[in-house]
């Protein structure tokens, strides 16, 4: 029974830790399928995390905070889209700029506002749900029915995105924009508009991931609190071969690795804790090295589209 409880706790915590990564990975999948790589989602997550806390504190509603975060993320995505899609700038360079913009904006905003008082502010964040009153059921209850609302929304979002890519004409347009934009152009589709919207959507998802981090997983903002989760999200996208459902499974792997290392820190006090903290990142590197062979990257990923006319 002890082992079962341990596993149940590990899984429930793993899912919680995976969610910010999963949300960002869903967004990154949309953007990359359309042909735009966004390495700045880490920065967008930070802005999302900060805005969510700020608005949640001032309005008293975490949902208002989430909405504000999503808007700020879409706006950050739009900045990336203006440079990479409209102005055809190098996508990696623009993404790195976005990363530092996000670090700076969130840190500066935090010091101007919430950090002023010197005492920690109370954040009325999200609480776990109790779906159908089943959260108390042993073992499976906390995993399936006792999670945050955003977690269920993330799974639904990934499923909807997978459906959109496989079964709708918008999905075809997105895939064409990422694989062979000339074909979309010749078919009368607006390549740049599709890409612009996808990059904005990636920003919105990343910011939602940040909001989860600061208003559900933790209740508060700390500078640079994402600690590389945006980059883990990018590796999830590659690992899952640009499949949104696969991306959340990969994120779950990282989340469980993270939950496990926290428990192992307690179990092995003799070992320096840094060895455990690096676990999710080691998993990322090893899995990427194994997965990148023969991976099917969108063929036009990273290249700006200019019609020949």
């Amino acid at each position, binding site marked *: 029974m002890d082992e079962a409880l341990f596993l149940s706790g590990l899984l429930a915590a793993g899912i919680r830790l995976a969610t910010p990564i999963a949300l960002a990975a869903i967004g990154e999948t949309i953007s990359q399928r359309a042909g735009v790589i966004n390495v700045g989602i880490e920065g967008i997550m930070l802005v999302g995390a900060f805005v969510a806390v700020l608005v949640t504190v001032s309005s008293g509603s975490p949902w208002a905070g989430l909405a504000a975060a999503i808007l700020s993320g879409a706006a950050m995505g739009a900045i990336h889209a203006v440079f990479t899609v409209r102005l055809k700038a190098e996508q990696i360079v623009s993404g790195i700029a976005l990363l530092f913009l996000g670090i700076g904006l969130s840190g500066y905003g935090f010091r101007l506002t919430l950090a002023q008082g010197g005492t920690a502010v109370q954040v009325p964040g999200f609480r776990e749900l109790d779906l159908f009153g089943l959260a108390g059921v042993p073992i499976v209850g906390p995993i399936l029915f006792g999670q945050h609302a955003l977690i269920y929304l993330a799974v639904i979002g990934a499923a909807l995105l997978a459906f959109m890519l496989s079964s*709708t004409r*918008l999905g*075809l*347009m997105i*895939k064409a924009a990422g694989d*062979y934009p000339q074909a979309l152009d010749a*078919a*009368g589709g607006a390549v740049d508009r599709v890409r612009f919207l996808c990059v904005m959507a990636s920003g919105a998802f990343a910011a939602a991931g940040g909001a989860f981090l600061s208003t559900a997983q933790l209740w508060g903002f700390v500078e640079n609190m994402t600690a590389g989760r945006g980059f883990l999200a990018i590796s999830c996208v590659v690992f899952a071969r640009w499949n949104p459902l696969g991306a959340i499974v990969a994120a779950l792997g990282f989340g469980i690795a993270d939950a496990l290392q926290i428990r192992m820190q307690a179990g092995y006090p003799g070992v320096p804790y840094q060895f455990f903290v690096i676990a999710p990142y080691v998993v990322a590197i090893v899995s990427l090295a194994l997965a990148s062979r023969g991976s*099917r990257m969108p063929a036009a990923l990273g290249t700006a589209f200019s019609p020949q*006319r």
Partner: protein
Amino acid sequence: MSDEGSVPPLVALRGVTKRFGAVVANRAVDLAVRPGEVLALVGENGAGKSTIVNMLSGLLRPDEGSILVDGRPVSLDSPAQSVRAGIGVVHQHFTLVPTLTGLDNIALAMPELGLGRLNRRQIGQAIDTAARTLGLSVDTTSRVEGLDVAQQQRIEIVKALIHKVRLLILDEPTAVLGPEDKAHLFDTIRRLKAEGTAVILITHKLEDIFAVADRAVVLRNGEVVADAPAAGLTPDDVVLHMVGSGDRDQARAIVTGETTLRSSSASGTDAVCRLADVTLRRSNGSIAVSGLSLDLHGGEIVAIAGVDGNGQSELMRVLAGMDVPLGGRIECLGRDSAGSAWTAAHLRRAGVAHVPEDRRRSGIVGEMSLARNYLLRHSDRRALVRHGMVRNSALQRLVRERLALFDVRTRGADERIDQLSGGNQQKFVLAREMDGDPRLILAAHPSRGLDIKTIRFVHGLLEEARQAGKAVLLVSSDLDEILRLADRIMVFAAGRTFGPTSRGDIARDEIGAWIAGHASGPA
């Protein structure tokens, strides 16, 4: 002017001029096509045919003059407007997304479906209906990247005709087809014509004009120089107009491709290259060819025939050292495919020249000058590079010399190579690859998309190379080219290989049957 007759033109260009910077691509072009008419548009490379196609398909706007549909001026500012005007285009470079199925590619070109859920069964029925009226069978459920070019072209045609099309433009549709697929295409064109659809056929092949066209329009230097019923023309006439010389004998020589060089016998020479039980893999992992054994000797041209996409590209890539075979063994000029020296650099040093099929991707760097592009192949030459420094004056001198020898029309060795027409780029690649006395020449579709005069030039080069004792491996989907040049012929079709067999031992229709995947020819 050819405005006789009572039927008004369906689509017409009136005094259309298009410039690109200082270059005039089309000058005061008048052109008209009537319902149910098949118009052949011919001309040398750079004569302005593609510019006309691009203006009619909404990709380019004319600088002067107007485009009329049903006698009314229209502005075709986007592909969507062109489709709305009833114009469908099958471009020379297909516009299919390789990772999508044929059905999804067609759905992508149907904006009227909106953005929502695709009813694939309904779309499939619409495709079937369109395909059936044309007598075409299309594979719409496989990913496009796994199909050969003939199948891809059929998808493009159905894609263009899924909307109500009154004018179908086919840009060099026969360049990639084998004889059977070509006959199918001509059938399709005749059916369209019978239904009252107008067809503009852009082609480099004179026989296409006489096979299906009602009228031929010849372009030279962007101007219409002839516009006449096909029935009243001879191949010599067309070439005379295209080339613009008054020399009828020269024109006839171009048409017949008479050559003074006879094939030399390859007897006694050791194999330059030996392939034993080779298996080749496509980039997507599927097997393209297996059990391929072939020897290449100096002084002979071995040709691989067949529809593109049956392993020819993979064979060339492997022999050029850009890939390794999945199975089997290749020995070439002292290199072994099992060893670590099977790279493009090693093989080139050993004497392999490569004229790649995709010139823009693996032959040249468009943004660089001709001189720099030349250096890409010859950077290990002491005369050109010493102590890591490029010796520009020597390079310039050599490149100028080679450009003159191969008659590459350019403003100079410093011009960016993407400013050149396709034919001149191809001549440049040949000039570069033939330099340095190669022993094995890999020529993939060396004359595709070139005009008839340049084709003769390219053929002459390959024949000279054979005469000089070099081994030539030619990949082509043009059966006439193969029959003209090859000493031995092999066919790749449907995962199988046929031959090799001597040119003298096989009839044309037997090769045609091989290309279609039948074991033996029709009786």
